């Protein structure tokens, strides 16, 4: 009897669970209130005759939604998504592939750390965006130059997180492993690597957010024609140039959505890779 009850409980879908959850409804109400206030603020000039400061200058949600329904029919819009996502993911993955081993090497080997950490720390304060002009000159294509900048954004983050995470592994784990006969390789592969996974995923999640910020600015600055152009950042910039403000907001929300989807993906992968962590 009890087993059957538990089974049906598990089969309840997430959607059903959300609909009965009070927290979910609070969130929904909050968003609706926000949208209503925004609408009123933006339309105040037309409806009531007086201009609300700041909000009055922004396009109202109704205009934005109208514009969005139009924009989604443009292939150019989806191409922007594709281009930006490509730049983000390529730069991001390159950052992980280079950054994780680099961080681990510095964590584990004090000579490596002594040699590479100082130049790393000196370069790190330079914002990735400050690299854009140098990047454009240095890389053969604009595409590569944007990807290099996104790479930097995620690279510093992942290295710092990996370094910190690996070095903060409780020494008792290492001692326990050694007293059971673990070799240096066992220590690295079975203790340090799994022990650093949480930091790797935090670095990845934060780095992903930074990558999106950077790609937008990179596109705004460097995008200008077909080659290297396009992308959601360029979409926003050209909308601004064209004076189509509601389209700017469409772009902003699109990017927010893209960033959210990317972070969710990383969180999901984290859950799969780290089954022992109940909360990520």
């Amino acid at each position: 009897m009890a087993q059957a009850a538990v089974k049906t409980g598990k089969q309840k879908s997430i959607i059903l669970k959300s609909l009965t959850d009070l927290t979910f409804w609070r969130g929904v109400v909050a968003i609706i209130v926000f949208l209503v206030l925004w609408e009123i603020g933006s339309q105040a000039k037309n409806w009531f005759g007086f201009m609300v400061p700041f909000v009055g200058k922004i396009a109202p949600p109704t205009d934005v939604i109208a514009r969005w329904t139009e924009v989604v029919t443009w292939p150019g819009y989806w191409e922007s998504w594709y281009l930006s996502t490509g730049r983000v993911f390529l730069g991001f993955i390159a950052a992980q592939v280079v950054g994780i081993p680099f961080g681990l090497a510095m964590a584990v080997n004090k000579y490596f750390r002594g040699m590479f950490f100082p130049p790393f720390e000196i370069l790190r304060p330079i914002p990735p965006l400050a690299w854009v002009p140098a990047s454009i000159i240095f890389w053969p294509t604009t595409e590569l130059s944007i990807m290099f900048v996104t790479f930097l954004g995620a690279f510093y983050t992942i290295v710092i997180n990996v370094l910190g995470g690996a070095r903060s592994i409780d020494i008792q784990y290492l001692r326990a492993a050694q007293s059971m006969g673990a070799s240096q390789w066992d220590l690295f592969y079975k203790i340090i690597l799994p022990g650093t996974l949480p930091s790797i995923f935090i670095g990845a999640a934060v780095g992903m957010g930074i990558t999106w910020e950077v790609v937008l600015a990179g596109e705004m600055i460097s995008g200008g024609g077909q080659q290297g152009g396009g992308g959601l950042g360029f979409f926003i910039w050209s909308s601004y140039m064209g004076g189509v403000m509601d389209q700017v907001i469409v772009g902003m929300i699109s990017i927010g959505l893209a960033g959210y989807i990317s972070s969710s993906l990383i969180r999901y992968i984290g859950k799969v890779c780290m089954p022992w962590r109940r909360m990520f």
Partner: protein
Amino acid sequence: MNTVSAPSVSNPQAGVMTKGAISIRNVTKVYDPGGVNVLAVEDCSLEIAPGEVCMIVGPSGCGKTTLLNAIAGFHSITSGQIDLDGEMLCGPSKPLADQGADRVVVFQNGALFPWKTLADNVAFGPVVQGTMTKAEARDKAVEMLAEAGLSNVAGKYPGEVSSGMARRAEIVRALINDPKVLLLDEPYRAMDGLTKSIMHESLLEVYDRTKVTIFFITHDLEEAIFLGDRVIVMTTRPARTKKIVDVKIERPRDYRLLSSEEFRVLVEETKEAVHEEAVKAFEAGERELA
């Protein structure tokens, strides 16, 4: 020096004589944290017989853990010598002992690997030493966990089980390596009284089966008398043996022992000695701060 000589037991599983006699001779350890020499252990000598349960008590910070670390190979000694079954672990020519599965440690705050299930944790030793394949080790692990009453949670992660279960699993993890010596550094310190008594029974049951030498550091005097063959009271820092209390109570022991007259007398005897040292440690601490 009086010793309780338990006969060396041949372990049918390993086919090897499990001895585990430890000889600590004139060991001195000087730390140098921040350029201020700290004399942790001074001229400490102690003989531990094979298969003996040797309880080490003493005031906080007196150097007990330093001794354990020296035996385990985590820290070096400054002078003196420690032998295991007649072979030198560390000494003048070799101040830092090699770490090895013949002396496995169980730590105070628990060091089960959070990213492995209990069964995989227990299987860790044999797998990294190459003495069993992964499948064999896992089967053996599940078997031994069942003996410790943990068959239901063998597939769970340490974060999902209670601390009592985790600590028992950690001891199984140590024992699967068939060590000569089990080094325990206040393993039950953070537990409530009821859990502790279950831990004690579990440990005694394991000891009665395997007769592994146990080197157990604790602050709990009742725990010391209840579990031990001998209780070694250490002086305040630098550590030296102050007093040895023989616990000539027969095994197997159970909790009813705790209310017996014999038990009470031994606890009182030990308490007196420890209290003296604790007061000294307290005063010394005050002097250091002043």
